[in-house]
């Protein structure tokens, strides 16, 4: 079976984002960008399914600026077979992304689409669920374990109280949680090899879907700053403070 893995180029998770002074957004100029961490986990899981002999081919897809090519090359270096870039300078919302991915899915006919559970820039946590809805497929969100068995997949999900296992009819959508796996690093020979793997360049217009934004960002601001705290010198002082707060008797 073929696997489709959508990946997103986002601000590196180690970078502390700065809000632009005019309130128009977050300053992304000259900031290190990387593959969204949850998407790395999705790529890794796809590769493991291929190594287990469950999957035959891994196609990675990204929607975004020309530089998103680098993100796709990273996925190819990890072990994906080929890539599709849907190039656009416009910001595409999860609904638009899901619509484009639904078209790609119709073309590629994968047995499983594995996405990250959320992107660390917009923190939406929507695309996988939306894609499942548009395709009429089952969804296994926040997966910490994925086991393909014949024409179904068992997905263990991280839910608020603990873990939950659901069985989904294939084809299906899975979104990855942090504990699903530990993504591998691409080795230098594999990075070189990835340069010659196929990468198709497409445009959103080819797919004939409406991706115009539904949400308008009015402004972006810094969160309220916390006022400076104090340091206490001993446990006794801390106990006294806790008593002041009414936390300790």
């Amino acid at each position: 079976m073929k696997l489709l893995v959508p990946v997103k180029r986002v601000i590196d998770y180690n970078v502390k984002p700065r809000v632009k002074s005019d309130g128009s957004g977050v300053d992304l100029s000259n900031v290190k960008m990387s593959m969204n961490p949850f998407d790395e986990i999705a790529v890794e899981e796809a590769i493991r399914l291929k190594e287990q002999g469950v999957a035959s081919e891994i196609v990675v897809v990204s929607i975004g600026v020309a530089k998103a090519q680098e993100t796709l090359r990273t996925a190819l270096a990890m072990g994906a077979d080929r890539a599709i870039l849907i190039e656009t300078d416009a910001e595409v919302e999860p609904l638009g992304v899901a619509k484009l991915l639904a078209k790609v899915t119709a073309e590629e006919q994968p047995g499983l689409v594995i996405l990250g559970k959320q992107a660390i820039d917009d923190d939406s946590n929507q695309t996988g669920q939306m894609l499942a809805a548009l395709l009429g497929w089952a969804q296994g969100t926040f997966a910490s374990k994925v086991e393909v068995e014949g024409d179904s997949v068992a997905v263990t999900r991280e839910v608020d109280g603990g873990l939950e296992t659901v069985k989904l009819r294939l084809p299906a959508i899975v979104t990855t949680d942090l504990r699903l796996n530990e993504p591998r690093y691409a080795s230098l020979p594999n990075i070189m090899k990835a340069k010659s793997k196929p990468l198709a360049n497409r445009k959103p217009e080819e797919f004939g879907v409406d991706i115009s934004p539904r949400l308008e960002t009015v402004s972006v601001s810094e969160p309220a700053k916390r006022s400076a705290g104090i340091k206490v010198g001993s446990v006794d002082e801390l106990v006294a403070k806790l008593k002041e707060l009414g936390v300790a008797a």
Partner: protein
Amino acid sequence: MKALVWVEHEGGALKDATLSAVSAAAQLGEVHLLVAGQDVGGVAEAAAQIAGVAKVHVADDAAYAHALAENVAPLVVGLMAHHEAFLTPATTTGKNIAPRVAALLDVMQISDILSVEGPDSFTRPIYAGNAIATIRSKDAKKVITVRGTAFAKAERTGGGASIEPVAATAGTGLSSFVGAEIAASERPELTSAKIIVSGGRALKDSETFEQLIFPLADKLGAAVGASRAAVDAGYVPNDYQVGQTGKIVAPEVYVAVGISGAIQHLAGMKDSKTIIAINKDEDAPIFQVADIGLVADLYTAVPELTGKL
């Protein structure tokens, strides 16, 4: 505007997260609730008592027993013919269902709102809470998930809503529930606790975590949380995790023990009223947000603190 709120419940009891979503919905218009599940008569009765609720829709069917998104989303979409907004708490259940509903309605979902600024306008955190976006929705119908800690909880009593059964939509058969491993805890629930004691990587192993963090939490009547590092190292189960990818909390008092304060963690707790940090590294970022800091070795400071309380 009529707003439909998803009622989250477990074991026949209505969960607190629902009450915050009701408060958010009340700022939009008339509040209706949806109770879906199997044998949920009792939950519906409790839901009808919530202050400010006009109507409770009840869908009682085996297909809704485990809130599988595939089965529940068509039910919600049917009800959305008569409602202008659908709100869920931003819990794992809400986050699983709401985007599926939104896509079926062809609208963009608004995730994890912090405030309602107007009928179309909301604030929400982006970049792990490092920025707050004000957004305006152009969609005719709104699908929204609500950050529980950002809204006061509606009163559980004082309401007198009518209860109306909803005809069940057929199960889709796309998915089935196999089983669950729910971590048992006698301590308060993390997301609704007034006090939280949280431990990080510095605890070294699960035994130390238990020996140091649990007694302190029990002395304070607190819930226990953990950083991602502590969870990944296997000290505690992952439902203890506080952070961007775990639970978002805002207790009265948050005690961070041996937690450095990475932005991923801060995103989950920096709205706490008072933050107390115990860390031996005086340059740890946690001290930049802590109201009260103690630079000390947690192996001596925590037992001493527990003993003196």
